[in-house]
């Protein structure tokens, strides 16, 4: 199927990352084009999450660089990455447990809120207006994710699946250009995965957001991604369209096992 994808927006070059003795990533390179859905797959412990952490500035790779929209970085901090429009969801749910759903998603907009401390304390005109305007945006996300009923619930009390949605909501609130998703559908049943796929594709279509997706459900990966990178024990063993990857013998050996 032909989908409109643009130039390379994110280019990962020769990333190497180790922790003491463990080599989590060895000389990994791949790129992501604007507007595509790019999947990363691989067995457990292959280094997928670590890869996102590198892009994200959570880990500092020992070697290699990352080019984002033509600018090359060796070291970035998370703040810079966020400012450039990269958002992220987490594998092990990194929600703000003590905050309500609404506040969690609102916090995704913080980068865009400009009022100073004093103005906020006084809820002066502009501060109030700003809050309202962002609230409206967030309400759209809440509607979109169908979590209206839980708006004021502390996220810690939500069932696992809804927490994942909130995590996505928070990332969406950043109006990202690149959205990194780390196993967004783990712990969901088929119906819910369908919903989630829908959300992701919608974001991709309507927003033009570029998506980098880690997922273990091959059905999902094959159906919704444009290109797939395969990692195994820190090494890249495959890269290409879903069909190419599916046919790659090494990928079959290392990850897919038999037919999928």
């Amino acid at each position, binding site marked *: 199927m032909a989908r409109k994808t643009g130039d390379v927006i994110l280019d990962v070059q020769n990333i190497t990352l180790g922790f003491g003795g463990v080599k989590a990533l060895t000389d990994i390179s791949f790129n992501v084009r604007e507007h595509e859905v790019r999947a990363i797959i691989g067995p457990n412990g292959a280094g997928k999450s670590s890869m996102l952490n590198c892009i994200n500035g959570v880990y500092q790779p020992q070697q290699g660089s990352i080019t984002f929209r033509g600018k090359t970085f060796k070291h970035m901090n998370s703040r810079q990455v*966020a400012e450039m429009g990269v*958002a992220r969801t987490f594998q092990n749910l990194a929600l703000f447990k003590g905050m309500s759903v609404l506040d969690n998603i609102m916090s995704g907009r913080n980068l865009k809120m400009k009022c100073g401390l004093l103005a906020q*304390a*006084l809820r002066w005109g502009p501060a109030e207006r700003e*809050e309202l305007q962002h609230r*409206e945006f967030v309400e759209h996300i809440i509607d979109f994710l169908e979590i209206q009923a839980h708006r004021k619930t502390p996220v810690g009390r939500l069932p696992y699946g809804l927490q994942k949605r909130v995590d996505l909501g928070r990332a969406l609130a950043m109006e990202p250009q690149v959205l990194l998703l780390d196993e967004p559908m783990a712990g969901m049943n088929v119906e819910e995965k369908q919903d989630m796929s829908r959300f992701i594709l919608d974001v991709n279509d309507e927003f033009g957001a570029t998506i980098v997706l880690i997922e273990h459900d091959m059905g999902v990966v094959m159906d919704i991604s444009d290109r797939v990178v395969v990692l195994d024990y820190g090494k890249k063993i495959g890269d290409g369209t879903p069909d190419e990857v599916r046919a790659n013998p090494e990928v079959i050996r290392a990850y897919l096992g038999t037919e999928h």
Partner: protein
Amino acid sequence: MFYRENGQFKSSYSADLALFPVAQDRWAMLALAAIAFIALPMFASDYAFRAIFIPFLILSLAAIGLNILVGYCGQISLGTGAFMAVGAYAAYNLQVRIDGMPLIIALIGGGLCATVFGVLFGIPSLRIRGLYLAVATLAAQFFVDWFTNRVKWVTNDSSSGSVSVRTLQMLGFEFTTPMQKYLLCLTLVVVFGLLAKNLVRGAIGREWMAMRDMDVAAAVIGIRPVYAKLSAFAVSSFIVGVAGALWGFVHLGAWEPSAFSIDKSLQLLFMIIIGGLGSIAGSFFGAAFVVLLPLFLNYVPHWLGLSISTGTASHLEHMIFGALIVFFLIVEPHGLARLWSTGRQKLRLWPFPH
């Protein structure tokens, strides 16, 4: 059946963003304000003002300040006493060194000095976390204890190191009666309480809570840890500093460094945990608990007509106090504020369970 939100649909987000979205709550707050500002001054005794309401209000204010740091931003501090002391001594110095300094400026000045100090001692929090940070904040506590004892200048060369404030006057008005002092405290508490509430429900509040709950994720969504943590230290120590100045100026009148010892720090931490971490209302509950309960326990033997020795009575009082702390933590680890809201939730369901 009477505590219902039914029929109160919010037609705009701004209505939902209001301080007290439920109408009943709004009325309750108004009633509370009326009692605090009108009824109490008319009926309460001097003793009640001086021994109950004034300390209650000041400690509530300090607890709000501490709650911002501990409850909202998750940085446990055992050095609150020090921040109060800085506020108090700074305000004192402003007052004695500048003639005719209006009280309010002195208080705010005290708060600002505490802010500077707080930010300074907040810097380690960028690296040290959790209980390590908690214990490390004791450095501030002991340093200030020492500093106020040792540096004569701080106490205006008082030979003993204890200081006592002049009259409380502002723009020609002098606060003399307990009722006037109470109203002063009340006004400040209300003002700072509202400001604090606005902060914690706004963007900065979310940054603080995000830092508290999951700092890596917070960084990933673009929150700068330096700014979030230090601003929490700044705001918190400002409020705590003002509270400290009030404690010295209004409640004690004259004090020695031990008035702001580690006991005070622990007491405040007590308050916010019993009251509810991350809750402005909880700060008030906690302060009430800590101020009122000992007084209450103190009276119980009198009421029962028991004559036990003061020593025994106060040991028993301590034990009961300790036991109640444990008890409340068991009943609701999130504090009285949560207990209160659970209660309200039940009321909302009443008379149908669930």
